[in-house]
């Protein structure tokens, strides 16, 4: 059990399929909502406080031992877009594949057996974090950070944005990531203290859901979501 496992799990190069997903940024760029550094920052901030908060809370709840099936259906209920549900399950499956080699445990094998086509990525992330000996807060950080680092990396490729500027965006959002991770862990504690999965946040970003459906229908695109 090592805290440095968090660095392994949160590394953008962790081979769990994330590189092919833009976190909605490809649709937002095409729609003209992300055009440069400032709008990337606003997009990431919006995503962090909605999808990011939800993902972080689910990941934290999974670490604390909330029932995986219940979490997975609660994640479905919070994801109106079928395209986003599909992407979340694909990413969950891919994360589990990498994690089963990195931190081989019976629990991860069981999860793969129970969800051969994947469970929602944040739920898998929580179970994986626990297998790696990490805490609920570590998992929440990982989920919250991923939800902004994904779009930032994608926009570097989509708009040829200066990579230093994109990294600056991430650096400016770190205190907000702290706050989101704290709120997520609070909610996750309520879940396991008896309130159940209804205590998990349900913040949503309708434009991102709509954008995901639009994106999934394109004949030509660079990113899977």
């Amino acid at each position: 059990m090592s805290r440095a496992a968090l660095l392994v799990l949160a590394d953008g190069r962790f081979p769990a399929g994330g590189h092919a997903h833009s976190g909605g940024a490809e649709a937002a760029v095409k729609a003209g909502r992300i055009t440069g550094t400032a709008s990337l920052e606003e997009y990431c901030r919006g995503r962090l406080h909605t999808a990011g908060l939800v993902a972080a809370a689910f990941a934290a709840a999974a670490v604390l031992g909330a029932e995986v099936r219940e979490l997975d259906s609660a994640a479905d209920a919070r994801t109106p877009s079928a395209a986003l549900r599909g992407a979340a399950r694909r990413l969950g499956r891919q994360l589990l594949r990498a994690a089963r080699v990195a931190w081989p445990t019976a629990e991860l094998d069981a999860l793969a057996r129970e969800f051969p086509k994947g469970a929602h990525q944040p739920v898998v992330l929580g179970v994986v974090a626990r297998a790696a000996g990490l805490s609920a807060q570590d998992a929440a950080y990982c989920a919250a950070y991923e939800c902004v680092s994904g779009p930032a990396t994608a926009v570097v490729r989509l708009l040829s944005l200066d990579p230093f500027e994109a990294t600056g965006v991430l650096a400016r959002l770190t205190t907000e990531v702290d706050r989101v991770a704290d709120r997520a862990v609070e909610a996750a504690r309520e879940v396991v203290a008896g309130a159940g999965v209804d205590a998990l946040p349900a913040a949503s970003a309708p434009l991102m859901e709509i954008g995901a459906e639009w994106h999934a229908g394109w004949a030509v695109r660079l990113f899977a979501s």
Partner: protein
Amino acid sequence: MHLDRDHHHGPVALSADAHRADGSRRALRIGLGGPVGSGKTATVAALCRALRDKLSLAVVTNDIYTREDAEFLLREAVLPPERITAVETGACPHTAIRDDISANLEAVEDLEDEVGPLDLILVESGGDNLTATFSKGLVDAQIFVIDVAGGDDIPRKGGPGVTTADLLVVNKTDLAPYVGSDLARMAADAKAQRAELPVVFQSLRSETGVTDVAAWVRERLAAWTA
């Protein structure tokens, strides 16, 4: 490391495991990489036509822009549509075949589950640079396809694709006279880079077409199932 190798009834395969969850041997996976437009898709199509009567085949494409290559294969009707899958690569085709192979592994495993049993899965990379190679976690052997029109100095330049691929294909030899490429020089340079590793010169516009590459694939398959 690979749990399923120790007990063949594990949950689902991880990466290069030779056996599937039910204990059966999985299909041989061959990757085709190489620069943009060198003839990867045309070679895949010709291989499918040459091998599909005797073998159960499937193809995974990694387009830079989704579906271009998959749609070509569908249009040419080289295989039924359920045997062709396209993977999105997030603008980084080499990442999807080397650094983070998860989406491709998912595609090959789903093909085996849905249309299997399969003998052979061809994985075409999106057109990339001379350093792009497939991970051993994804494919069992790789073919690097270059063409004579991309410049006859490519074998001399080397790079991991030219130097280490299990088979180097120099395609479009029919164009050599028109672009002034010296095939003898390309062959000598390839030999110098690759020592004993095989090289095939082919023109898909000629009578013999993909014959040599198909023979190499059959040899690989014989070794895999032996």
